[in-house]
C-alpha cells in the first residue's frame, strides 16, 4: 500500500514552517541561511509530490531549476557574509542594523 500524497504535502508544510521559524528567530546569519535552505527544500518536496499526482514531469523540471538557483543563492549569500564579516567582524544580525533606521 502506498502512502497518500497528502502526507507528503503535510510533511513539506511542517518542514517549511520549521524553517520559517528559524529564519525569523535566529541571530546568526549562517543559521538564518540554513533555515532558508530548509524552506527551499520543503518547496521542492511539494513540487515533486505534485509532479507525481498529476503524472507530469514539469514539477521535476522545476525542482531541477530550483536546485541550480539554490546553488547560485548560496554562493552569492556566503560571499556577502564573508564581505560583511571582513567589514564588521560579526555576522550577528542584531548588530548589523546600519540600514534599519
Amino acid at each position, binding site marked *: 500500500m502506498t*502512502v497518500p500524497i*497528502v502526507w507528503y504535502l503535510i510533511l513539506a508544510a511542517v518542514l517549511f514552517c520549521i524553517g520559517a521559524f528559524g529564519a525569523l528567530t535566529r541571530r546568526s546569519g549562517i543559521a538564518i541561511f540554513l533555515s532558508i535552505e*530548509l524552506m527551499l527544500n520543503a518547496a521542492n518536496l511539494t513540487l515533486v509530490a505534485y509532479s507525481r499526482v498529476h503524472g507530469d514531469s514539469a514539477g521535476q523540471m522545476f525542482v531541477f531549476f530550483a536546485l541550480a538557483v539554490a546553488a547560485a543563492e548560496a554562493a552569492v549569500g556566503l560571499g556577502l557574509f564573508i564581505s560583511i564579516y571582513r567589514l564588521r567582524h560579526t555576522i550577528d544580525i542584531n548588530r548589523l542594523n546600519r540600514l534599519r533606521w
Partner: protein
Amino acid sequence: MLVAVFATLAVIAIVSAIVVVLHRNPVFSTMSLVVTLVSTAGLFVLLGSPFLAALQILLYTGAILVLFLFVIMLLNVQRERTAVTRASGMVIAAGICAVVLAGAVIRLFWAAYSGATFAPQNPESSSLVTIARELFGAYILPFEMIGLLLLVAVVAASWVAQKGDPAKSDTPEAPDAPAAASSVASGGKS
C-alpha cells in the same frame, strides 16, 4: 512497508530540521541539515524520481553544504554563548506565526488533495532519457538561462568576497581601516 519507510524518513527529517533551527553550534546545524536533505532525497525516491534524489545529494549535501561548512570554518563562527534566538517576545510571535501558517497550509492541502491518489506511474516518465529530452527540448531556454545565472553568481560571489574591494576602503567605522587600506594598496601594487 512503504508506510513504515515514509514514517521513518519523515520523523528523521522533522527531528533533524528542529535540530537545525535550535542548535547553538553552526557546524552541528549544518550537519543535521545534511540529514534532513538526505532523508528528503529518500522521499524523492519514494515519489518515483530517483534522478532528483541523486541530484539533491550531489548538489545540496555535496556542494552547497560543503560551502557552508567552509565559510563557517573560515569565519570562525563561535557557538553562540548568549541566547540562540532573539528576544523572547519575538520568539513567541514567530512560533505563533509558524504554527498558524502550518495549520492554514495543511488545511488547504487536506481540502485539495486528501482524496488524491498517485497517477498511474508511467515507467518512462522518470527515466533519464525522458528527463533529458524534456530538459533539452521544451525547457532549453530556462536551461541556458540557468547556466548564465550560475556564471553570474560565480562572478558576483568572487567579486563580493574578494579582499580590498572598493566598499571596504571608504568605510570610516572599520577599526583598522588605515592599516588595511595601506596593506591593500601595497598588495595591489606588488
